[in-house]
C-alpha cells in the first residue's frame, strides 16, 4: 500500500510465550481471551451436542448418558441426573464463559482502542488482571466438574439450589469471580471511550461498534454488582441457612428471581448489544455505503442499555409475582422492542442503493438480520403476558433465546471474526471456507431451532430429559440440525487454522473499510498507529 512496513507487529514485537501472559497490550489480551473463550465454546458445544443426542428419541430406548465414562460420574447418578448436569454446564458455560465475555473481551479489547485512535485501553494493567480473574473464575467453574458437579440450571433458582447435593457454592463463587472480571472490563472500556479518543474523534464520530461496546460496558458496571451480592447471599444461604431465599425459613424464592434477573436480563443485552455493533460495521463495509441513521442507532444502543434494567420481571409472569408487577413489566418490555426495531430497519435501509459484496462477513450479517428478526419478534410474543403464560419455560423460549443468542451473537462473532481476521492475524483466510461454514451454520441453525418453536407451541417444557412420544419427530429434526451446526463450526475452525498457517499476507485494508482500525498495519504494531491519527470526519464516509 505504498508504505514500507517494518514487519514488526504486536504479534512478534515481544518474543516468547511468557511475554504473552505478562503483556499489557490490549491486542494480546484480546488474543488471550479469544483462545480461552473458544476453548470454553468448544466444551459448551460438545455439551449441546450431547443434549441433542439424548433428545433424539424418548428415553424408552435407553439413554446416551449411560455411555458417559464412570470417572466423569458421581456415584449413583442416574442418566436423568447426568442430563441435568450437562444441561446446566452447557447453559452456565455458554452464558458466563462464552457469550458474556465473548465480543466485548475479544473484539472490544482488540478494536475499541484501534477504532477510536487510542494507543491502548485506559487501564492496561487492569485489563490483564481482568483476564486472570476471568480465568480463575473459569477454572473454578470447570473444577466443579471434578467435585460434585452442578445441576441447578444456570439460573440457580432457590430453593432447588439450596437443596441440591451438588457443588453449588463453588459454582456460585466462580460466577462471582467472573462477574468481577466483567465489571473491570466494562469499567475499563467506559473510561477508554470517555478519555482516550484521538484528536477529532468526537463521541458522534465513533464507529457504531464502539457505541455498542460502550453501552454494554455501562450495563456490565451497573448490573453485575447485584449478581455478585445475590450469589453471595445464595452461598450464605447454603452454608448457614440464613433464610432470605429459603421459604422453609420464611424467605422468599421469588425475591431471588427478582435479584437474579435484575442482573441477568440486562446481561442478555450484554450479550446482544456488541453483536449489533459488529453488524453495523459489517453492513456498511460490505455495502460500501454510509450507515443509515447513525445517530438513531447510537441512541438506540444507549436506549436499550437503559431500558434493559426495567424489564426483568417478564421472566416472572407465572412465578407468583403479583399481577400488577406482571403488567408493568410487560409494558416496559414492549418499550425495549422499539429501539431494537429501529436498528433493524436502519440496517435494512443501509443496504438500499449500496454496492453489496457477498463475502462471508456480509453473509453472516444478513444471517444475523434473518435470525434476529425471528428471535426479536418471538421475543415480543413472549412479552405479551397472556401468551407467555402458555409459552413460559417451554421449548418456545429455548428456541427464542437461541435465535437471539446464537442466531444473533454467534453469527456476529463469526462475521466479525472473518471480517477482522486479516487485521488481527495479518493473514488472509480462505473465502470459500468461510462461506461454507456460513452455509452449514445458517441452515443447521434453522433446522435445529425452528422445530423447537413448534415443540414449544405444542407444550413441550424445557429442561426435559425425556418427553412424550408425540414430540419425537420434531426432536429428531432438531438433533439432525445440531450436527449440521457442528459441521459448520468444524469448517470454520479448519478455515481459521489454514488461514493462520498458510494464509497470504494481508494488506492494510482488504475490504475497503473506512473505520480507523484499517489505517493501522495488518497486524497492528504495539502502539497501534505509526503516527497518532487525527480524525476529521465520521466513521462511514463512503462517498
Amino acid at each position, binding site marked *: 500500500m505504498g508504505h514500507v512496513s517494518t514487519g514488526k507487529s504486536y504479534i512478534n514485537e515481544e518474543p516468547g510465550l511468557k511475554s504473552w501472559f505478562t503483556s499489557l497490550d490490549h491486542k494480546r489480551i484480546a488474543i488471550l481471551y479469544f483462545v480461552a473463550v473458544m476453548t470454553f465454546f468448544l466444551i459448551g458445544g460438545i455439551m449441546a451436542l450431547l443434549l441433542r443426542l439424548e433428545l433424539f428419541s424418548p428415553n424408552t430406548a435407553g439413554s446416551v448418558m449411560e455411555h458417559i465414562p464412570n470417572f466423569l460420574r458421581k456415584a449413583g447418578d442416574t442418566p436423568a441426573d447426568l442430563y441435568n448436569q450437562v444441561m446446566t454446564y452447557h447453559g452456565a458455560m455458554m452464558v458466563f464463559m462464552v457469550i458474556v465475555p465473548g465480543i466485548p473481551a475479544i473484539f472490544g479489547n482488540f478494536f475499541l482502542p484501534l477504532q477510536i485512535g487510542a494507543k491502548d485501553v485506559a487501564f492496561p494493567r487492569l485489563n490483564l488482571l481482568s483476564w486472570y480473574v476471568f480465568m480463575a473464575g473459569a477454572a473454578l467453574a470447570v473444577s466443579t466438574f471434578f467435585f460434585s458437579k452442578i445441576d441447578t440450571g444456570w439460573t440457580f433458582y432457590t430453593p432447588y439450589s439450596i437443596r441440591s447435593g451438588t457443588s453449588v457454592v463453588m459454582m456460585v463463587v466462580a460466577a462471582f469471580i467472573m462477574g468481577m472480571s466483567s465489571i473491570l472490563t466494562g469499567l475499563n472500556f467506559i473510561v477508554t471511550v470517555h478519555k482516550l479518543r484521538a484528536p477529532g474523534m468526537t463521541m458522534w464520530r465513533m464507529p457504531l461498534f464502539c457505541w455498542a461496546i460502550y453501552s454494554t460496558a455501562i450495563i456490565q458496571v451497573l448490573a453485575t454488582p447485584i449478581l455478585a451480592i445475590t450469589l453471595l447471599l445464595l452461598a450464605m444461604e447454603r452454608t448457614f441457612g440464613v433464610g432470605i431465599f429459603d*421459604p422453609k425459613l420464611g424467605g422468599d424464592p421469588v425475591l431471588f428471581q427478582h435479584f437474579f434477573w435484575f442482573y441477568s436480563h440486562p446481561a442478555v443485552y450484554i450479550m446482544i448489544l456488541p453483536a449489533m455493533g459488529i453488524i453495523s460495521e459489517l453492513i456498511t463495509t460490505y455495502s460500501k455505503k454510509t450507515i443509515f441513521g447513525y445517530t438513531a442507532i447510537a441512541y438506540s444502543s444507549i436506549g436499550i442499555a437503559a431500558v434493559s434494567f426495567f424489564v426483568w420481571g417478564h421472566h416472572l409472569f407465572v412465578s407468583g409475582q403479583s399481577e400488577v408487577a406482571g403488567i408493568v413489566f410487560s409494558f416496559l418490555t414492549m418499550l425495549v422492542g422499539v429501539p431494537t426495531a429501529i436498528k*433493524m430497519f436502519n440496517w435494512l435501509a443501509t443496504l*438500499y442503493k449500496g454496492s453489496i459484496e457477498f463475502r462471508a462477513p456480509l453473509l453472516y450479517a444478513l444471517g444475523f438480520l434473518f435470525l434476529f428478526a425471528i428471535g426479536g419478534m418471538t421475543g415480543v410474543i413472549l412479552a405479551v403476558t397472556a401468551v407467555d403464560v402458555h409459552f413460559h419455560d417451554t421449548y418456545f423460549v429455548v428456541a427464542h433465546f437461541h435465535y437471539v443468542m446464537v442466531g444473533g451473537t454467534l453469527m456476529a462473532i463469526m462475521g466479525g471474526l472473518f471480517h477482522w481476521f486479516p487485521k488481527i492475524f495479518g493473514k488472509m483466510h480462505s473465502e470459500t471456507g468461510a462461506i461454507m461454514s456460513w452455509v452449514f451454520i445458517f441452515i443447521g441453525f434453522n433446522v435445529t431451532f425452528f422445530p423447537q418453536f413448534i415443540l414449544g407451541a405444542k407444550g413441550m417444557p424445557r429442561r426435559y430429559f425425556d418427553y412424550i412420544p408425540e414430540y419425537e419427530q420434531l426432536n429428531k429434526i432438531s438433533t439432525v440440525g445440531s450436527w449440521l451446526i457442528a459441521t459448520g463450526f468444524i469448517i470454520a475452525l479448519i478455515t481459521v487454522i489454514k488461514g493462520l498457517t498458510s494464509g497470504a499476507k494481508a494488506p492494510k485494508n482488504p475490504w475497503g473499510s473506512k473505520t480507523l482500525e484499517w489505517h493501522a498495519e495488518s497486524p497492528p504494531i504495539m502502539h497501534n498507529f505509526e503516527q497518532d491519527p487525527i480524525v476529521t470526519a465520521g466513521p462511514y464516509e463512503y462517498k
Partner: protein
Amino acid sequence: MNWLIVMNKLLLAKSAVAGTFMPVQATEISKQVDNLYGFLVVVSFVSCAILIGGMIYFAVKYKRKTQNDKTAYITHDTRLEVLWSVIPLIVFLLVFAWGWIIYHDMRTMPTNALEIQVTGKQWAWSVDYKNGVKASEVVVPVNRDVKLILASDDVIHSFYVPSFRIKQDAVPGRYTALWFRAEKLGEFHVFCTEYCGTSHSRMLTKLRVVSQADFDKWLTEESDVSGLPLAQRGAKIFQTRACASCHSVDSPVVKVGPSLKARWGTPLNVEDGTTGVFDENYVRESVMLPQQKIAKGFPKPSPMPSFQGQLSEAEMIALIEYIKGLN
C-alpha cells in the same frame, strides 16, 4: 379502502393461524390466547417478511457489479425513522393491552368455583378434594369453574396444562392459584415446567375432564376405597402417591429407584455392605425411613421422600400386599 381489505385479510389469516401447531383448545381462555397468538404470528410474519424480504431484495438488486460502484450517500431520513419507530410502538402497545385483558381474566379467580388443592413435590403432583379424596391425577367436571390452589412441599414446581394455556408456579412457603373452565371432555397432559431435579421430566400427570355425573360418581367411588380388596387398595395408594414415577412395576427397568417387578422375597444388597431379604419389614422401613437401607448402586442420599406420618398402618399393609402381588 385498501387498508380495510388488508386488515380483513389479516384477521382472516389470524384465525387461520390461531391454533396452528397449538394443542387442542379446551377452554374459552385458550381460544382467546390463540387468537392473540395468531395475531402476533401474523404480525411477526409480516414484519419478518418486510425485513427479510427487503434484505434479500436489496442484496440481490444492489449486488456489487464493479469495484468502483457509486453508492448513494444517505445519512438519515427523519420521516422514515419516525415511522418505523412509531408503528412498532403502536403495535407493541396494542398487543400489550390485548394481552393484559386476557391475563387479567386468567388471574381473576371466579367465585363459587370448585376448589381443588394441588401439591407438587419431587416428583409428583398430589391432588386433594374437599371430601378427602386423594388422587394423583386431576379429575374435573366439564363446563364448571375450577380453581386449583397450588402449593409445594420442597422446591418450585410449575403446573402446566398446554390444552388450557394455563401455567402457574407452585412456590413453597405460600399458595398460588389458577382457574379454568374446561369445555371439552377428555384427557389432557399436565407437565411440571419449573426445573425441579432428577425426574423433572417425569413429573407428569393427567387432567381428566368428565361429565358432572361421571365426576360425582368418581368422587364417591374414590372416597369409598375401604371396600376394595387389600391389593387393589394398595395399587391405588401406589398410584396416588406417585410411587410409579420412580419405581417401575411391569418391567425390571430402573427409573430412579429400584424396580419392584418380581422383587418380593429376593435377596437384598444394601449399600453399606449388609445383606437381607426384600420383605415386609424392609419395605416398611424403606417407605418410612428411606435413608436407612439404600439398595446397592442407588444414589445416596436417596431422593425418595419419607412417608413417615403420611401413610397409616392400614395403608402400609395394603401397599405391601400390592407389591407382593407384583411377582
